[in-house]
């Protein structure tokens, strides 16, 4: 294992210490329990947006804390969901009284930990809603699995929802918007190489020199299928078509019903893309893939979207949701409406995403 680290067990702690030193104007870091939060939190009257998940996906989530995006992020150990006490303390720290939205990627561990955290926060008098992101079309059904995983759309949701909260949307509206972003976003990823979790010390899987893994998640877990390496254009086409041609996706998720005061099952339906849709096209590096290759992928994605009648109105190309040093990429398409475009364009100032300010 070749990494610029000291001891594997100290990676997350030392990273957070580095983040605190590097961005004192933007964020503060609380240790034990660990969370990163806006330097100026709580922001009066503003709904607090909190996310979290295993570490190793940087800049997500800690790098998205700041003005116009997240109020706090809870990092777990590398690729391991964080714990409810982190989420609870984060909520207590950044809640201004306007309530808290937990943005939760759909992994069993994340979902359960955030649900427990929400329950605990409510016993302390904090209004909390949880919204899931489950956008990974590599997972085809939800009946026989834990459902689609939360991947690229998470980044877009954190930006758009963060802007809405900054603008003064109330908790209910922020949650509704987050759900809307989620059902309109779809992603698919692939890997050329595995990555190595510091505590494990060895690669998460093996791939031959001429192989790639399609439908990979963001935890170094194997994907949908392994196949011979193809050209960038062929790979882009495979990923893009899996997304664009994906049919209606229906599943039941658990959300908190504030009126009933209990968790209820909600059925969500992702409508398929259709010609004429306005989309945000997001080409993401899994970490080790350089910009030069992302540009080559974007080039082909643009061509495919055009051919399919999808109009790219915004884009994001870079490293935003990663799997440590893994080489590979993911594509996310998000159907945009005017509200989402306006919120996407709103100023954001975080270590990992910044514009307009």
């Amino acid at each position: 294992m070749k990494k610029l680290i000291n001891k594997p067990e100290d990676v997350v702690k030392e990273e957070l210490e580095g983040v605190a030193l590097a961005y004192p104007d933007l964020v503060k870091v609380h240790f034990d329990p660990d969370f990163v939060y806006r330097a100026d939190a709580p922001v009066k009257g503003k709904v607090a947006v909190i996310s979290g998940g295993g570490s190793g996906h940087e800049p997500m989530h800690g790098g998205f804390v700041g003005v116009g995006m997240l109020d706090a992020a809870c990092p777990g150990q590398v690729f391991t969901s964080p714990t409810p006490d982190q989420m609870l303390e984060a909520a207590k720290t950044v809640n201004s009284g306007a309530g808290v939205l937990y943005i939760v990627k759909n992994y069993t561990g994340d979902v359960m930990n955030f649900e427990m955290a929400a329950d605990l926060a409510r016993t302390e008098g904090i209004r909390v809603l949880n919204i899931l992101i489950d956008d990974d079309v590599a997972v085809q059904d939800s009946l026989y699995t834990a459902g689609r995983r939360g991947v690229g759309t998470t980044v877009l949701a954190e930006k758009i929802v963060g802007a809405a909260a900054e603008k003064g949307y109330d908790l209910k509206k922020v949650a509704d918007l987050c759900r809307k972003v989620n059902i309109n976003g779809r992603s698919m990823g692939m890997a050329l190489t595995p990555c190595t979790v510091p505590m494990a010390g060895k690669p998460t899987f093996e791939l031959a020199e001429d192989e790639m893994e399609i439908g990979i998640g963001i935890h170094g877990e194997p994907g949908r299928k392994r196949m011979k390496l193809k050209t960038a254009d062929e790979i882009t086409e495979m990923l893009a078509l899996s997304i664009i041609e994906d049919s209606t996706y229906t599943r039941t998720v658990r959300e908190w019903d504030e009126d009933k005061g209990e968790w209820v099952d909600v059925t969500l339906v992702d409508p398929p893309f259709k010609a004429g849709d306005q989309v945000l096209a997001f080409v993401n590096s899994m970490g080790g893939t350089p910009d030069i290759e992302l540009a080559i992928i974007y080039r082909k994605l643009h061509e495919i979207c055009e051919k399919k009648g999808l109009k790219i109105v915004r884009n994001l190309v870079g490293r935003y949701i990663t799997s440590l040093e893994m080489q590979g990429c993911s594509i996310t398409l998000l159907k945009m409406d005017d509200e989402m475009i306006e919120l996407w364009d709103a100023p954001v100032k975080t270590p990992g995403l910044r514009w307009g300010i």
Partner: protein
Amino acid sequence: MPITTADVLACLRKMADVIHENKEYLTELDSAIGDADHGINMDRGFQSVLKKLPSVEDKDAGTILKTAGMALVSSVGGAGGPLYGTAFMQAGMAVAGKYELEAEDILAALEAALKGVVMRGKANLGDKTMVDAITPAVAAMREALRNGAGTAEALEQATAAAEKGMKDTIPMLAKKGRASYLGERSIGHQDPGATSSYLLIRTIAEIAREKE
């Protein structure tokens, strides 16, 4: 002789030992169908439980178990943390205020733990999770007590049932948790969570047997 709070404390300490000894094994199982962290997570969790025990040494069994549950919740992470955390907290609620536990109390605690896991994780029998080890164990203990078995005897039958339940997960296709993403590829591997559940139940039985 009833189980005392000293026995409960001893049991939790022994659980920490057992998990520590099986850290690699559980992680290895999780690397086949999960993300190779179950042993690491559970070990971190039980080390955290150990640290909390001195502060509750003179407390009732319920408080001790709830404290252990909270320690697990705030240190394990992943799926294991909320599931085992809930299990121990619910078990603690079932024996709240008690300083001595009879066989029925232990059964009640285990039933509550199982209910907690199912409430939290919504897994069904056969989904290839810890539920497949805990469910038969609870049933076996209930049945043994109904047939007049003593505490240790009943817990040993529970252990045997948990072990069988654990092994029965091998041919199953995972429908919950991370392993479910593998589809058919999850078949043929023993579930790590079912394995840790078996190890914990076995530890309870061993403590009860030492008592007699």
